[in-house]
């Protein structure tokens, strides 16, 4: 029964035969995968295996890298992201939260309002409303509601990361990419963000890169294990951790290497 509902979920992102090169170096080899909506998909694997590279392909952040090259096809709702979408529109749909919190050097309010302002929203009331909603959605509203004019840099690391999530949410994305969003945070902030992810998946499609096996186990519906540029295994999180098909996956999730 549960399996049935899972299968009914729509495929948001489809990756077909993706190869990625940085100059001569091949970073990803023949990746094929589907990412479904209202699910959390986790990317795990040892350092340098290409998790961030794949994540950054999904919102074309790799276009900033001068010698980046890819072949294959990535579609969002069936449309090729490299052809059909204007790059800025794509990034509005596919938001990103970085490993290191990167709030802008401006007030908390202006950080959140930045994205909506870029999309052309100028109305003060409307902006106020978006700022409040986004901060609430990222469960940081209570921490900052009296200090919206304060510099975002004065917040703690965990608060900054939640602010960055709020900032990403403020542009109303459909997919949210998170690259090790809790690796710089203490356990309490980490827990807050994990809870947040589980709430957010009701509305968004979430892809999260993590080095924390427990985190993947706790929050991810699907898990993908990468090893030296290859997608070794991809499936229900439960299966990846309990009954991995591949030996490498087994060794990795048991903490034997990586």
């Amino acid at each position, binding site marked *: 029964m549960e399996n049935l509902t899972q299968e009914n979920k729509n495929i948001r992102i489809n990756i077909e035969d993706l190869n990625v090169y940085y100059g001569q170096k091949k970073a990803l080899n023949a990746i094929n995968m589907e990412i479904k909506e209202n699910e959390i998909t986790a990317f795990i694997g040892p350092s340098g295996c290409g998790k961030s590279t794949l994540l950054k392909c999904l*919102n074309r*952040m790799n276009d*900033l890298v001068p010698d980046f090259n890819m072949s294959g096809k990535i579609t969002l709702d069936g449309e090729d992201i490299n052809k059909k979408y204007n790059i*800025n*529109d*794509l*990034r*509005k749909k596919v*938001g*990103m939260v*970085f490993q*290191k919190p*990167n*709030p*802008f*050097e*401006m007030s908390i309010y202006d950080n959140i309002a*930045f*994205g909506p302002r*870029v*999309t052309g929203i100028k109305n003060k009331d409307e902006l106020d409303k978006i700022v409040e909603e986004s901060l609430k959605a990222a469960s940081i509203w209570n921490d900052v509601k009296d200090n919206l*004019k304060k*510099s975002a840099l004065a917040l703690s690391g965990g608060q900054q990361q939640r602010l*960055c999530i709020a*900032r*990403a949410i403020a*542009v109303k994305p459909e997919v949210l990419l998170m690259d090790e969003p809790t690796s710089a945070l203490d356990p309490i902030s980490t827990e807050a963000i994990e809870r947040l992810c589980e709430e957010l998946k009701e509305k968004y499609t979430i892809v999260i890169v993590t080095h924390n096996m427990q985190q993947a186990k706790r929050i991810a519906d699907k898990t993908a294990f990468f090893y030296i540029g290859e997608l070794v295994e991809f499936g229900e999180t439960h299966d990846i951790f309990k009954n991995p098909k591949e030996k490498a996956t087994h060794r990795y999730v048991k903490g034997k290497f990586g």
Partner: protein
Amino acid sequence: MMLKIILNKENIARFIFLAAAYVAVACVILICVFLFTQGVPPIAKIGLGDFLFGEKWKPSQNLYGILPMTLASIYTTVGAIVIGAPIGILTATFLSYFCPQWLYKVLKPMVNLMAGIPSIVYGFFGMAVLVPFVSYTFGGNGKALLTASILLGVMILPTIISVSESAIRSAQKSYYEGAVALGASHEISVFKVILPAAKSGIISSVILGIGRAIGETMAVVMVAGNQAIIPTDITRGARTLTSNIVIEMAEATDLHRAALIGTAVVLFVLVLIINLLFSVIKTRRKHV
């Protein structure tokens, strides 16, 4: 044993650093002492009010009012900043975020070269190009406040460009990535996120530019006309504080000479006030 402790490498290094720092401090103190012991008595003798706000500078009649020169210095400097700061900051932005690699390799050495050109050469450029240009465009003989402002605006460019550029480059790349990840265009990301983050460095570049402009002498003497009268029209000539000193110092004696040193005191205090003002603005901004 004692000697070993005193002579260990760390202590020697510390001593050298300390000595170097003290040399700089000592220079500033010596300059202050010289300026104030030599410059304050004549100001007192002339009368502070008559000196600062006197509108006539006529040493032959014992009139030593420097208001015309102070105003000329302020006007030319403001003019230089109005012209030089936007061009300089935009150039720095271009160099750090818009310039293709090959063009950067051409432009950057040129900017560095600009910084090394002696001011007398700028002066010649001003006389040969700017003076006729201003004369042609606005009438008059072309030696004017405006001419000096344009020339100073050009002269402060390398300072503003290089200091701003390093400020813009040191603004974290992660801000830029954060902005484009929200769907902001390259231009918006640079102007709305990177430049504000580089704000304090950019302000510093402008302060340095102001310092350079208000202190510049040779080039200004060559294009400003140097009339010691209250400037009322930017297309007319004017004499700055620095020009006043360099023009008259050679033949000045007694009170006249002392009054020129007093002029230097005013210049010094002016620069001090500007620096203070900006650091106040800067710290205030940070605390909001």
